[in-house]
């Protein structure tokens, strides 16, 4: 049989299957062989050895092979395929022969050899095929009829629109392919849906753009959230996200689309404004744009992946600011210590005394830093500063009286230096020399619109046991520092009054705001 020409094979084949030939009415018997031949859709018949026993003209055209080449030859001899598609096709035939039930391969990529006169080589094609059994009288399957449709063009169009989610079923509906194709496809569809769901719920941002205008054909939840929940699918990037038009991203997409390059960026700033009435939000993203190519290698779209790095970038910026701030503070502190050393060792009479003065100034600064560090450098209570200097004296000798006032870091350090100079002077020449003197420190503060003011009244009452030297205020550094800080740095007023009974120091200053810290 396989040696005979297909033209004459089919009627006998049909007759051989015991097909009823009408009921003897007046209706003319149609020419089934003729119909088979002229059907616009490709048909062919295989025997149990998967050899061609009949092909129609449309099949010859679709496969680029004549019936002379095909008939009697095995399908896999003519169209070998060692891959998944070959296995799928063979399995479908096996299933029809084994079960006697039709089987459908709704979509199958299958390369076919291009004839020499068309340049040779292999050509990637996409097919949809229905396999129907032709049974003998005993019910056994003798032949399989394949109706196949070359869907390559449609797939390519669709591919451009929906990569990586080939949405073939809708296209087949357009083809008005047999209904069972639709049914058989449900499984494939659900597989595609699972895949789609996976992408949709992925934590990273994913979008698929098609064509030179970058039309969104897919966006996942993460992407949609990032752009403020706007509808994107079916719109161009320029229409859907107008605010990013002048941020350089469209140019990058164009480059990917036209040149096929992969473009990526790290921590790129982007301004997103979900609605013209809404505030624009600055964000930072990592992204990759990959070209999507079709089987011929032509670029059909861009695959976008991204992740929102805003929080990480902000954290690192914040850290950078803190590092700068730390460096600034350290340098300023070093400059302050340098100044202390310079002043302490200037015109030294007694080197030990100078060293003692320097070290006590250094410790006063260090204690002020401790107080601030305990409160994350946000504030320091005035009483804590006073107690650091004066806490070692009995309560009856040192009276502290005033409301708690929180000082900014800058105010605290400046005041700590003032209090240290006043205290060390009192220890050497004033109320805290000897055992009988009394120091009273009173203060008051009030909040004003232009910042908080602080008024301090430092009154010393020398004891009778104080060293015989007259009431004394060490000239030079101590007074100079106090004057400079109160009048210069704080822009306040200072009154120093040396009486027989002891020093009285009054000053009134406007405190620095927290924002002035360490500047």
């Amino acid at each position, binding site marked *: 049989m396989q040696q005979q020409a297909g033209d004459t094979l089919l009627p006998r084949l049909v007759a051989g299957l015991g097909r009823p030939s009408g009921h003897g009415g007046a209706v003319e018997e149609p020419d089934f062989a003729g119909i088979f031949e002229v059907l616009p859709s490709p048909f062919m018949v295989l025997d149990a050895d998967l050899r061609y026993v009949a092909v129609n003209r449309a099949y010859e055209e679709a496969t680029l092979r004549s019936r002379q080449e095909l008939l009697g030859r095995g399908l896999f001899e003519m169209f070998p395929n060692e891959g998944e598609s070959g296995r799928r096709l063979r399995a479908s035939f096996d299933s029809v022969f084994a079960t006697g039930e039709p089987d459908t391969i709704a979509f199958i990529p299958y390369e076919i050899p291009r004839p020499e006169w068309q340049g040779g080589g292999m050509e990637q094609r996409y097919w949809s095929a229905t396999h129907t059994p032709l049974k003998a009288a005993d019910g056994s399957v003798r032949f399989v009829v394949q109706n196949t449709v070359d869907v390559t063009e449609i797939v390519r169009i669709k591919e451009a629109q929906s990569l990586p989610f080939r949405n073939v079923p809708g296209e087949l509906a357009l083809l008005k392919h047999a209904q069972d194709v639709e049914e058989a496809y449900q499984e494939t569809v659900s597989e595609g849906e699972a895949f789609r769901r996976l992408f949709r719920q992925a934590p990273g941002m994913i979008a698929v753009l098609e064509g030179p205008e970058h039309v969104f054909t897919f966006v996942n939840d993460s992407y949609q959230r990032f752009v403020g929940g706007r509808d994107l699918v079916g719109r161009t990037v320029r229409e859907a996200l107008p605010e990013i038009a002048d941020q350089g991203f469209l140019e990058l997409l164009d480059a990917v689309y036209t040149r096929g390059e992969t473009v990526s960026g790290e921590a790129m700033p982007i301004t997103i404004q979900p609605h013209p009435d809404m505030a624009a939000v600055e964000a930072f993203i990592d992204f990759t744009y990959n070209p999507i190519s079709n089987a011929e290698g032509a670029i059909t779209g861009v695959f976008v992946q991204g992740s929102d790095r805003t929080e990480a970038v902000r954290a690192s910026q914040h850290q950078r600011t803190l590092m700068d701030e730390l460096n*600034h503070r*350290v*340098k300023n502190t070093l*400059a302050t210590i340098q100044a202390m050393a310079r002043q302490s060792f200037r015109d030294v009479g007694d080197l030990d005394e100078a060293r003692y003065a320097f070290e006590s100034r250094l410790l006063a600064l260090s204690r002020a830093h401790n107080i601030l560090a305990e409160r994350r450098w946000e504030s320091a209570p005035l009483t804590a500063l006073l107690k650091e200097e004066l806490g070692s004296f009995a309560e009856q000798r040192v009276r502290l009286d005033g409301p708690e006032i929180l000082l900014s870091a*800058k105010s605290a350090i400046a005041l700590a230096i003032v209090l240290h100079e006043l205290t060390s002077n009192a220890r050497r020449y004033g109320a805290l020399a000897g055992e009988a003197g009394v120091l009273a420190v009173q203060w008051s503060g009030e909040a004003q619109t232009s910042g908080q003011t602080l008024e301090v009244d430092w009154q010393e009452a020398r004891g009778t046991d104080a060293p015989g030297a007259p009431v004394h205020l060490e000239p030079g550094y101590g007074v100079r520092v106090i004057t*400079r800080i109160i009048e210069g*740095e704080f*822009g306040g007023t200072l009154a120093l009054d040396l009486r027989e009974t002891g020093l009285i120091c009054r000053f009134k200053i406007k405190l620095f705001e927290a924002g002035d810290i360490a*500047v």
Partner: protein
Amino acid sequence: MLSEGRDGSCDLTGVKVFIVEDESLVAMQLEDMLLDLGCDVVGLAMRIKGAHEIIDSGIPIDVAILDVNVSGETVYPVAERLCSSGVPIVFATGYGREGVEERWHGCQILQKPYTLQQIETSIDRSRP
């Protein structure tokens, strides 16, 4: 006055220096260093407002040494005024070069802490 081992290659005697610095101790030290160099400190401002007042007074200034951040404000408006009247500027900041706006990078920039020699060199180089 030469006790700190300066090479004495430049003579800054009588150079009129204007200081903007909001840290008292640092300001005092700078004053002392300038006095040691023979300079004449014609003004010390610890606030931006005070700096403008000193410039307003019309006092002659040969060189200005400016801290960048002064009690929460930047010193650039003051620098602009000085620059437009041709006063050379030396910036002195804990941030160093990165703490100074790029357009001022042509000026001398000192990082705190600085030595007497660095002050001397900066003033000398800043002058036309």
